[in-house]
């Protein structure tokens, strides 16, 4: 699959969204409901992306080394580790569990 058209379309949409904030009537974006939906959408999408990457394997659900990554990341975040440390903790947990022969 050639991803280039979709990559460029995503880039155009991203810039158009940012620029829209500078041009659309203030009343539309100032509407609390618009702001609220942008916020809930961000939370919902990130939650969804987290579980998809942790549990989905194509069209089925799987429990494998990635659940170790999820747990390690949660612990690191709870300990207020910086972003990069959280990511490394996730990678190390998944790699470690695979080294032990699981998932």
């Amino acid at each position, binding site marked *: 699959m050639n991803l280039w058209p979709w990559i460029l379309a995503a880039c155009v949409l991203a810039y158009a969204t940012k620029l829209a904030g500078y041009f659309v009537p203030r009343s539309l974006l100032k509407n609390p409901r618009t702001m609220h939906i942008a916020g809930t959408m961000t939370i*919902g999408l990130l939650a969804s992306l987290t579980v998809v990457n942790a549990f989905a394997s194509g069209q089925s659900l799987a429990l494998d080394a990635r659940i170790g990554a999820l747990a390690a990341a949660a612990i690191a975040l709870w300990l207020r580790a910086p972003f990069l440390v959280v990511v490394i903790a996730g990678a190390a947990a*998944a790699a470690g569990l695979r080294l032990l022969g699981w998932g």
Partner: protein
Amino acid sequence: MPPKLLDSPAVKVGLSISVATGLYGVSFGALSAASGFDFWQTMALSLLLFSGGSQFAFIGVVAGGGSGVAAMTASALLGLRNGIYGMQMNALLLPKGKLKYLQAQLSIDETTATASGQSDPGEQRRGFWTAGIGIYVLWNLFTAVGALAGNALGDPKQWGLDGAAVAAFLALLWPRLKGREPWAIAVACAVATLVAVPFVPPGVPILVAAAVAGVFGWLSHARSDEGLEPDIDPYPHRRGDSRGDTGEGAE
């Protein structure tokens, strides 16, 4: 840089947020390479799309077997909040003429948070541009480093890079989970996603979750700026009041 500029608190905050945010460009570059994107595709996302969450979303959907159109849609929906930031930064910094076209590209979580955390208009402007230019340069530099390193690693699973993606998304979500409603939305969307996985093509469960989140946002009346927190808080010692003081959007 003249010493006078370094005396500015907003410039200091902008520089430190640039380093912190720029560094995690490494994880984006490496994950993108591991997800099958070539070097220039990875760089196009960082140079042109330039919004961390949306970039991770795009490669995350493709890595999970999703189509290009699903990846684009997830990325665009996740970027909707940047429109709000654009509106806030337009009202706060009052850019003149063509400057707003450049300022728009830099209107993301971290620059908005850095600028909104200052009260003096000059400081707000310095904070925005220091964070914006600093993050843009470092994010792209470290994306390139990550993309090259990721290509050299070989089997991404052996290095736990799929686990790194899980951790990255959780880390992006985490600072936004302040209070009961954000948690409720996150749990509802996670459950909706898992229920949808077996029934629809890869990538689509994420859009199902977006629909659930949209309905949630439409129906509820909680504080209007929830979910609009930066991935890395430029003002960690002022937790809870570092945002929303632009005079805009507060209910």
